[in-house]
């Protein structure tokens, strides 16, 4: 008790002689020894730097002595000050978010990202702010954090829930994420994710598979090979089977399709176009919402099963018109 009293006296002397920092440290020592020391807490409520700490000190005093009217009045003042501070911060954050939204609309995503990040650090940027952050941030962790905040405000938003599910899935599956980066032509990030995948425990065969992918991407990077968008690849590969069908149809129609056309085959030509598209879509690991809508695949790149099913459907749509054409030729040969 003697040490505590001595410290208190020293602290009071220091406070009265305007040595505030020394006094604050001494009062802190006192409350460490005796957390029930009302006088020390009272002094601390005026000496601490942070407004929240001052409020906490006042609350502590009132816990020890609920009849301390002076401190109760002081606490009310501090809380009012805090409210004003929060309102100011909120206004500033709202202003920042508004500017960020305008900048994002103007295509200045980097600047918009900086502003909305700053707003999120000081204050809750609100629904629009979180939405914007989820939209413009290149960092997956940050996107997930922002989406969680959006979902906290609008729990019914299915598209946000779906996107959050997809991102969380990709965060757990670096190989799939790497495939997305590869598809986008971001080879460096793809390699980074494949390395992340290598760190995860797996079979030796899988490990070798990932290693081969890294080597392939590094070679691609070294040779400076251009990125071809998945849309281009799908359009290109989808055209092959219909072109073959078109050539065969011309021969079947006596080279001149206008003379006496058989409409059913021209309709079937459209079926081969659809089939060709499905085959190409399944072959290229393109990310699309359709994988989620049809197969509830959260990665939206198509699981092997989903892609196989789509490819089989595509092949059936391609082969049936060909078979019909062959059947018609067969009938012409043997029954005409």
């Amino acid at each position: 008790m003697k040490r505590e009293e001595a410290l208190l006296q020293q602290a009071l002397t220091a406070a009265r002689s305007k040595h505030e920092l020394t006094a604050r440290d001494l009062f802190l020592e006192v409350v460490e020894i005796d957390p029930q020391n009302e006088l020390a807490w009272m002094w601390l409520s005026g000496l601490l730097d942070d407004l929240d700490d001052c409020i906490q000190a006042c609350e502590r005093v009132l816990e020890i002595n609920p009849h301390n009217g002076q401190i109760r009045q002081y606490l009310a003042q501090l809380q009012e000050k805090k409210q004003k501070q929060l309102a100011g911060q909120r206004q500033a954050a709202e202003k920042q978010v508004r500017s960020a939204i305008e900048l994002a609309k103007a295509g200045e995503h980097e600047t918009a990202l900086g502003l909305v990040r700053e707003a999120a650090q000081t204050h809750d940027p609100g629904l629009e702010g979180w939405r914007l952050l989820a939209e413009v941030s290149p960092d997956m962790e940050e996107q997930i954090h922002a989406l969680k905040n959006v979902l906290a405000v609008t729990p019914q938003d299915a598209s946000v829930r779906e996107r959050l599910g997809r991102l969380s899935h990709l965060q757990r599956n670096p190989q799939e994420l790497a495939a997305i980066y590869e598809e986008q032509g971001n080879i460096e990030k793809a390699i980074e994710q494949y390395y992340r995948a290598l760190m995860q425990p797996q079979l030796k065969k899988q490990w070798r598979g990932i290693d081969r992918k890294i080597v392939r991407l590094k070679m691609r990077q070294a040779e400076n090979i251009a990125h071809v968008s998945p849309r281009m690849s799908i359009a290109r590969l989808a055209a092959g089977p219909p072109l073959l069908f078109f050539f065969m149809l011309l021969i079947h129609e006596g080279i001149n399709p206008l003379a006496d056309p058989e409409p059913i085959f021209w309709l079937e030509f459209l079926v081969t176009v659809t089939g060709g598209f499905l085959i190409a879509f399944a072959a290229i690991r393109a990310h699309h919402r359709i994988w989620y809508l049809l197969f509830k695949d959260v990665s939206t790149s198509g699981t092997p099963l989903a892609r196989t099913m789509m490819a089989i459907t595509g092949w059936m749509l391609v082969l049936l018109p060909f078979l019909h054409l062959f059947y018609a030729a067969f009938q012409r040969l043997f029954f005409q």
Partner: protein
Amino acid sequence: MLPLNDTEPNRYSRFSFMTLILILANTAILFWELSLPDDWGVIYTFGSTPSLQWARQGAGIISTITSMFLHGGMFHLVSNMLFLWVFGRRVEDACGPIRFLLFYLLAGTSSDLITALVLPGQDIPGIGASGAIFGVMGAYLLLFPEGHIRTLWFLYLIPTWPRIRAVWFIFYYLAIQIIPAMNIYLHGADYSIGYWAHLGGFISCFSIFLFLRPEAFARYMSNVGV
């Protein structure tokens, strides 16, 4: 001058098995043909005849496909299959087996279509894989302009096998098609070789870009070796 082998290795696959399957199928069909007492019936039914196609008679597109697998004799088959092996192996590697098969059929169909368009009155059936193989040669020219092949030459009956640029070899074979083809078109000359079928197949080579693997296409677009 005959091609012997493409001297460059595959890039994407270990072995071009569709090319081998096509060679085996063509060979098996020739042996089946040879086993028949009268193979002319088969050739007339399953060979491709432009006049019948215009009249919507005969086997139509069945004959378009079957004529690609019929050959007139062992020399016809061996020379065609040699070309297919030399030029098809790496083209298949750049496409993948299924897409290569589709391209091969497309080239054969295109060769049939061009023959029918240029020579609508021809009533002699055309047979052989050469139309499709010319398509494959054209694709090789587009994809591997720097490619080299081993060839067999006879200089005063002495065999020699130099490695030459494939582009010269293909241009040579293309050039020797053009004059007889024009002669057929302008003067109605009669040849036992389907020169227009060869040119028709060759024209289809541009469609190879619809069948390339995405990676091979990206390499082509980047001007690095496919």
